């Protein structure tokens, strides 16, 4: 079965029935060997399907675990009313921990705490585990052999990402001099300030 037109309804039927993302390989596996379409044909069918979704209430997207149909964001207002509970909110502490794991993986709890300047609650780690957003990928070879965390495919799927590269770019580390000026610090190094009056005047009105 290599004609793309014929593949389209089969592929969309499978994606809708699956209820989870399907990889191109998984879609190919739905065909018996003698009729299995080439990867390029499946890809072409997927392109055609995406094209046909234009202007519809749903779209074909590719996330880490494969392709899936999903509701277009602009209809979330109405679709969200299907469920009585409002969507789960995640605390800033949880999101910051998740961000650290996402951008700095593999990372230990201690390393997260060092950057956040506060203890990471066991609850947060447990919640992230239960959601299957993070997993233990090893243990750091230091005393106590703390677990190192990394994010999962489910994390990427949940946040509509294909891979970690699609995460929003991390802010640049600004040049220290600029930052000092911005924060109202005196110019470094300290030799310049022989007295205690290193404070900058503009800070005083606060």
């Amino acid at each position, binding site marked *: 079965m290599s004609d793309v037109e014929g593949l389209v309804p089969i592929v969309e039927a499978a994606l809708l029935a699956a209820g989870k993302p399907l990889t191109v390989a998984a879609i190919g596996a739905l065909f018996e060997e003698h009729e299995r379409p080439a990867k390029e044909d499946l890809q072409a069918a997927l392109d055609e399907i995406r094209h046909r979704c234009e202007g519809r209430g749903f779209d074909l997207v590719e996330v880490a675990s494969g392709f899936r*149909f999903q509701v277009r964001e602009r209809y979330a207002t109405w679709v969200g009313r299907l469920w009585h509970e409002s969507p789960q909110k995640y605390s*800033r502490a949880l999101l910051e921990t998740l961000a650290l794991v996402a951008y700095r993986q593999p990372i230990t709890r201690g390393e997260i705490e060092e950057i956040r300047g506060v203890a990471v609650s066991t609850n947060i780690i447990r919640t992230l585990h239960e959601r299957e957003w993070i997993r233990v990928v090893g243990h750091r070879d230091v005393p106590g052999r703390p677990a190192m965390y990394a994010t999962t495919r489910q994390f990427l799927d949940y946040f509509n990402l294909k891979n970690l590269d699609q995460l929003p770019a991390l802010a640049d580390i600004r040049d220290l001099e600029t930052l000092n000026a911005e924060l109202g610090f005196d110019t470094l190094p300290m030799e310049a300030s022989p007295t205690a009056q*290193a404070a900058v005047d503009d800070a005083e009105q*606060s």
Partner: protein
Amino acid sequence: MPFAFVMGKAVTELPKDLYIPPQALEVILEAFEWPLDLLLYLIRRQNLDILDIDVSRITEQYMQYVELMDAMRFELAAEYLLMAAMLAEIKSRMLLPRATPVEEEEEDPRAQLIRRLQEYERFKKAAEDIEELPRMERDTWIATAAPPPIEKQRPAPDVDMRELLTVLSEVLKRAQMYESHQVQREALSTRERMSEVLEKLSGQQFVPFISLFSAREGKLGVVVTFLAIMELIKESLVEIVQTENFGPIHVKGRAE
């Protein structure tokens, strides 16, 4: 709008500096979730100069907090104190004239703090970015349709004869341990024939003994059938009925 209530008093604005009323500490730290966050806020929004801190007042507050710790969230207070101590240390080092040039290699404590704050800020922003990402069950949902009627196709498991023999040998060994089950060598053909005979008898009243034998099977077949019937009789599975001497023998399944 009051930002929080502390001991009945409305707190209408966020703190302008580090001198947080002890009673408000928990509320305020919770609003910021943690001290680094608060410090960042103070420096950015309130133009707090980390050098313009009265160390003696900070020290005084330490003591107050230590006294209040029992009643408050210990960890948060501790975090706060750590931060305050860090600031006090920076301040005190800035106050001291540099003793020797050797210390030049030592990093400016302010630079350390700035680096930390900046690093923290990056991830604070990253968390906000993640929060904004279109997310399942909030911004989008997976689209599904009911599957068509599908024939359940579950292939039957494969069994290897060796597997079967292995478990048998083990169960027999086990049985011997439980009780002295005599497992003797026996002709399986007899047991197979026993099953066949029983099946022939099922649902019928009396079956002529003769009809159980088939000449086609030859002598051996007849012997096997005979042994099977004998075994069945021994196990009280069949009944033999002969109404008169030398009359036809009938066999009947006892249970049927």
